[in-house]
């Protein structure tokens, strides 16, 4: 009979890749069951922000979890760079959310104040910058005249998400992990160990983690975990490489280390098609030009869409099965930001066989209580 792995991770994207890397690095014999090239992969479509701003307003546990990951990021980025064979472009330079017009600025001011009052003044360190302060922070940036200010989260930043994914996979392999791409998991049976039916073969493991993005609900259900996840499409486009003009990443607008300006973003419901639409791209481009008018003369070289895995409240879901101990599920749309915590804290919990208390509020059982407004 074939080998029984310590851990099988179903899903080789940003979430599964990070958990598998973390498990393998801790010495667990780990197999990563990855989809095919044509699978719906959020991890090929990320914007690349490492971001706390605006996250977890209604779920303090998620805000804390995000901050935990941000604290782990500098060392994690080093490890990923070493695994990927080149640094992955992580820049912890602060993150902006621009305001256009007086109303946006007034609303943002209220929101920043509200965040500050959360947690008895120990809320997230976000502050509001008026136009003058913003100009002082970005002396070489050609801000449009309608930009009234921005909120700034000093610990936020950005990264090259494709290099991060490569780092996760390369680090996993280097730690002795076994990568099986092109796998479609048909069913998972639990007995002494988990038997994962991959069509052509059966993989056995003592623990299993389902991190299959928008494909999570079907697999989680086989393990007694109900977790509603729906696709929310996000569109992106990138310009030709331009001289440095935006040193800090902003919500839906960042300039990469190589000079490319990346423009987002949409939140589109009700489609399983990761396509782009002219209407959305035009709106995104118009907003970007309002922020940085010289972009009107930039050439767009590529645009793409990807499907984010979204839970009913938009926050991550983590659980260990009550009926099948040793079976875990992890799903979220902040795979880049949370990758450091997934590779560290979460992987350790999986190996220990118990999710620590910080995960309690992020259990998908919350969707069974009260409203299930967006439940798919």
């Amino acid at each position: 009979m074939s080998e029984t792995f310590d851990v099988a991770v179903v899903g080789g994207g940003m979430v599964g890749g990070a958990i598998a890397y973390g498990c393998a690095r801790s010495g667990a014999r780990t197999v990563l069951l990855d989809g095919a090239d044509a699978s719906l992969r959020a991890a090929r479509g990320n914007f690349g922000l490492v971001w706390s701003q605006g996250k977890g307003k209604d779920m303090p546990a998620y805000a804390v979890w995000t901050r935990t990951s941000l604290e782990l990021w500098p060392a994690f980025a080093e490890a990923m760079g070493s695994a990927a064979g080149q640094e992955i472009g992580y820049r912890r330079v602060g993150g902006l959310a621009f305001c256009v017009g007086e109303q946006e600025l007034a609303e943002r001011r209220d929101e920043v104040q509200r965040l500050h009052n959360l947690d008895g003044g120990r809320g997230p360190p976000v502050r509001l910058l008026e136009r003058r302060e913003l100009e002082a922070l970005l002396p070489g940036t050609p801000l449009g005249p309608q930009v009234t200010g921005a909120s700034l989260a000093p610990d936020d930043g950005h990264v090259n998400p494709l290099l991060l994914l490569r780092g996760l996979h390369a680090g996993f392999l280097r730690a002795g992990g076994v990568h099986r791409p092109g796998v479609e998991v048909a069913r998972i049976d639990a007995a002494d160990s988990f038997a994962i039916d991959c069509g052509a073969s059966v993989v056995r493991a003592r623990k299993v983690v389902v991190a299959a993005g928008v494909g999570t609900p079907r697999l989680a259900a086989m393990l007694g975990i109900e977790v509603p996840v729906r696709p929310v499409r996000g569109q992106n486009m990138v310009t030709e490489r331009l001289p440095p003009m935006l040193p800090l990443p902003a919500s839906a607008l960042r300039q990469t280390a190589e000079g490319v300006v990346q423009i987002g973003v949409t939140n589109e419901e009700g489609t399983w098609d990761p396509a782009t639409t002219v209407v959305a791209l035009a709106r995104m481009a118009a907003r970007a030009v309002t922020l940085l008018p010289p972009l009107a003369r930039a050439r767009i070289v590529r645009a793409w869409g990807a499907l984010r895995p979204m839970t009913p409240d938009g926050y991550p879901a983590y659980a260990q099965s009550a009926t099948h101990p040793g079976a875990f599920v992890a799903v979220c749309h902040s795979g880049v930001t949370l990758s450091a915590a997934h590779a560290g804290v979460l992987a350790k919990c999986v190996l220990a066989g118990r999710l620590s208390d910080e995960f309690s509020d992020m259990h998908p059982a919350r969707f069974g209580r009260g409203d299930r407004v967006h439940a798919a």
Partner: protein
Amino acid sequence: MFTRPDSGSIFFHFDGKEIRAREGDSIAAALLAAGERVTRTTPVGRAPRGPFCMMGACFDCLAEVDGVAGVQTCLVPARAGMRVARQQGAPPDEFEAA
């Protein structure tokens, strides 16, 4: 770099030099055949770049063609008398800070 049985009979200008091309050559193909490997420098690090994929995907072969910056030279056929210039960084001046 290469030898060609027929090196062509049309000529265009590249930074003041005469480049010989065959009918139907892309600008990039003609430049490579003439031993010219650098068509631009990068906007951030000013590193040299030249034709790589030859099929419109990599955007490394950009140059200024008849006054238009950012042209993918692998996709544009060489024509007699055209003026091609190495592009220094990004399209010039347009993206200077306001």
